């Protein structure tokens, strides 16, 4: 018998060519190959039909090494060009034997992608699919969704997405927010004298959101979760303490400005009183004058004492306000599940009451000393009666100063989303809330009721009580309800900034699923005026459940908003009542592009597609787009059959020369009936 090796050619393929399918065994079989001491690109492999199904019969460690062939685009490592092999335990691989029927030198040429039907479990035995995760390649799925498939479907290789943690949780179990700060509000630096109020409310709002990211069950939080909550409250307390100095300074300044003329008048009246009294007694004007002056002079030091208090009052109040801020924040965190505007109002009002109480007590003895001339001036009464004191030091503009009204630029920003409309500062509401809470507390105290230490010092606010989130409050006019929204209402479009005002619009919905949908258009209901540039557009809803709808406004030379086009339709926006039907009314040329010809056509994605013709400038910029067949090129139909738009309309310009045009649909309610005359205008140019 001839030794078979003597007749072998030792050339790949000439001694038989054997394909095989195998499995990468568990990582423990790979030895130093996976621990930094490997050689080449190779892996142990258990080959079907050649190796037993039993790891006892042939342990993984004794399997042959298989070389891995790389695609030419991967690089070999030469000249710093290369990429590593990404095979993992449990992968099913495909290859051939370099030595033909000897089957001792396997080569891996490819691998089979995993599907969702491949079990992602721990290793159980040879050829049974198992996970590619190991002790050193771990993923708990909290920051990057756990995934072991690369199928061509929407569920494969799930990515984190740009939504808040709460939104991600409500979208689905595998959804992950890609940054925990998403959804937080940032208040920018501003020239507004009352910006501190916005800063305070922003901090409280963000705290509520952040705590809800930590846990949805705040009342039962314990251990590390409780520590995290307390840590956040402490951080925000310190921040609000600092911001509050603006509020304190503003109120003290206003008090002194208001008090000065009262004391001045009192001082003058005192002179008159003393003068007339002494004159009546002595009949000597010089005596009377000296007595009057002496009476005034006796009050110079007490008045000076009031001025001397000026630098100290603010610091003393700020030094003690932290405890109250922390307590109120804890109440808000415990009691409020939806940060509505009245919560912000009450929070600031509680600080106002603390400041009023603090100023009153700090200055009371000094005021006692000037009681002769204060005419019963009540510090707390004055502070409670002037909402402008809360609003900050508003100086008048000099003739060369340009008004920087805060409608010109962006005041607030939502991380991940963009510019947010400034909610405004309800200064009157803040003072009203402060006074009502104080009156409630005083009334209860008068009746001998126990109101608690916190309510005693700042008043009885709804945010201090869990009933503020009671559904029984929902729907009551004037009540502050901070529980989960009972109804989301309808999605709103806010138009703001660039010095204009008055523009309003309503959304058009498409891609509707149940009671929610995407925003596929916007109908201008008021063009507003005074817009220097296209204003900002914010699409929002009361439940903060919609996300991703982005609109941009267009204005005319008169500073009026002419249209809003949709850049991204978003999803999950509450549609409110039964939606109307809409059609494409006209088309906005957002960017005219270049190089287009009048013979180019535009097609949309509505129904089976409509066709439009364009008008261009001599240098190929699109100036106008007009429909030529409102239905289809081959099926002219009555205009009453104008096609209803149900999804975001998109357009394709068919051109061999042009590029860069961006065109967007402008939607309008579908007419109930269309006059016959319009049919004649819809000339089908393609089929003629």
């Amino acid at each position: 018998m001839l030794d078979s090796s003597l007749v072998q050619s030792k050339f790949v393929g000439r001694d038989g060519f054997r394909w095989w399918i195998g499995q990468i065994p568990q990582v423990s079989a790979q030895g130093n190959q996976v621990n930094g001491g490997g050689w080449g690109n190779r892996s142990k492999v258990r080959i079907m039909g050649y190796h037993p199904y039993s790891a006892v019969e042939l342990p993984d460690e004794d399997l042959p090494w298989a070389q891995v062939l790389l695609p030419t685009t991967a690089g070999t490592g030469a000249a710093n060009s290369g990429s590593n092999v990404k095979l993992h335990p449990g992968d099913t691989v495909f290859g051939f034997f370099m030595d033909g029927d000897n089957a001792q030198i396997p080569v891996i040429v490819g691998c089979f992608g995993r599907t969702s039907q491949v079990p992602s479990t721990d290793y159980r035995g040879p050829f049974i699919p198992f996970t590619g995760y190991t002790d050193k390649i771990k993923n708990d799925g909290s920051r990057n969704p756990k995934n072991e498939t690369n199928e061509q479907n929407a569920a494969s290789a799930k990515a984190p997405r740009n939504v808040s943690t709460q939104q991600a949780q409500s979208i689905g179990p595998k959804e992950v927010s890609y940054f925990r700060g998403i959804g937080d509000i940032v208040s920018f630096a501003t020239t507004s004298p009352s910006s501190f109020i916005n800063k305070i409310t922003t901090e409280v709002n963000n705290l509520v959101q952040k705590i809800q990211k930590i846990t949805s069950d705040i009342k039962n939080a314990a251990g590390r979760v409780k520590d995290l909550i307390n840590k956040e409250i402490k951080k925000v307390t310190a921040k609000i303490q600092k911001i509050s100095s603006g509020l304190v300074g503003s109120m003290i300044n206003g008090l002194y400005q208001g008090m000065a003329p009262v004391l001045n008048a009192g001082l003058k009246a005192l002179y008159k009183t003393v003068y007339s009294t002494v004159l009546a007694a002595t009949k000597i004007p010089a005596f009377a004058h000296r007595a009057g002056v002496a009476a005034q002079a006796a009050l110079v030091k007490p008045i000076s004492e009031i001025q001397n208090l000026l630098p100290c009052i603010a610091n003393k109040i700020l030094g003690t306000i932290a405890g109250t801020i922390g307590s109120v924040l804890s109440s808000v965190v415990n009691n409020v599940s939806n940060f509505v505007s009245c919560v912000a109002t009450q929070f600031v009002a509680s600080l106002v009451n603390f400041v009023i109480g603090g100023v009153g007590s700090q200055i009371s003895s000094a005021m006692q000393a000037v009681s002769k001339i204060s005419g019963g001036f009540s510090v707390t009464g004055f502070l409670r009666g002037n909402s402008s004191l809360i609003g900050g030091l508003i100086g008048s503009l000099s003739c060369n100063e340009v008004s920087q009204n805060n409608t010109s630029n962006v005041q607030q920003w939502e991380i991940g989303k963009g510019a947010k409309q400034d909610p405004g500062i309800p200064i009157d509401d803040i003072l009203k809330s402060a006074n009502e809470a104080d009156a409630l507390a005083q009334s209860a105290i008068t009746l001998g009721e126990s109101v608690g230490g916190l309510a005693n010092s700042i008043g009885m606010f709804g945010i201090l009580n869990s009933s503020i989130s009671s559904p029984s409050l929902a729907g009551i006019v004037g009540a502050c309800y901070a529980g989960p929204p009972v109804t989301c209402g309808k999605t709103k479009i806010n138009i703001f900034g660039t010095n204009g005002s008055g523009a309003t619009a309503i959304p058009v919905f498409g891609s509707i699923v149940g009671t929610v949908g995407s925003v596929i258009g916007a109908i201008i209901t008021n063009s507003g005026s005074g817009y220097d540039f296209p204003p900002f557009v914010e699409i929002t809803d009361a439940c903060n459940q919609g996300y991703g709808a982005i609109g941009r406004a267009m204005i005319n030379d008169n500073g009026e908003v002419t249209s809003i086009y949709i850049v991204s339709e978003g999803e999950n926006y509450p549609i409110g009542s039964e939606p109307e039907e809409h059609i494409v009314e006209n088309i906005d040329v957002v960017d005219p592009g270049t190089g287009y010809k009048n013979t180019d056509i535009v097609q949309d994605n509505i129904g089976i597609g409509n066709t439009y013709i364009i008008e261009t400038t001599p240098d190929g910029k699109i100036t106008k787009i007009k429909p030529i067949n409102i239905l289809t090129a081959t099926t002219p139909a009555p205009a009453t059959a104008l096609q209803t738009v149900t999804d975001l309309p998109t357009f394709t310009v068919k051109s061999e020369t042009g590029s860069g045009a961006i065109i967007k649909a402008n939607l309008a309610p579908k007419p109930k009936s269309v006059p016959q005359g319009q049919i004649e205008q819809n000339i089908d140019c393609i089929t003629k």
Partner: protein
Amino acid sequence: MAQRPIKNQNWQGRSFTTFGPKFRIDMANPQMGLNGSSVYDLYAVSDNGDISLIGLSEGGMMHVYNDNTIEIVGGEKSETTGVDIMITGKNGDICITAEKNGQVRIRASSIVIDADMDVTINAGNNLKLKAANKIDLQSNIANCDALAGNLAPQETTFMNKVLKGTYVSDLAAGILGKKL
């Protein structure tokens, strides 16, 4: 909670490469985010769960997020008079905000603030200007409005407002032994 119908999501255009659980590149992922769906995302996660993301969304916003410090250093080899880091807003504002209890700190051998129009500095509490040598104020008009202090003009102080027009307005400084 309902996502838009899958027929309206362009999965055909999506492309991704994942490099294990710590880093992924995702392109044209149609899943919706706050600023529209994703054009691209470079997404990384550390063993400690810290995130780093650079991405662009269809709303046109580029995001750079990082759970911990973002370090930008330029100019190690540039000329001393050159520009090492250039940040420009072509049309809108440049907003820098230090949240919580952070400070905005700027240090340089000299600092220039050059505003075409007004410079406004708001301090919730104190504003301190300290120069080791001198402070020059130059303007066509310079005003000071304060209730007290040695820079406050007589007519704006609290004491003067209270004493104005009384017989002790001229005597008060003598009574107190100091300027009002």
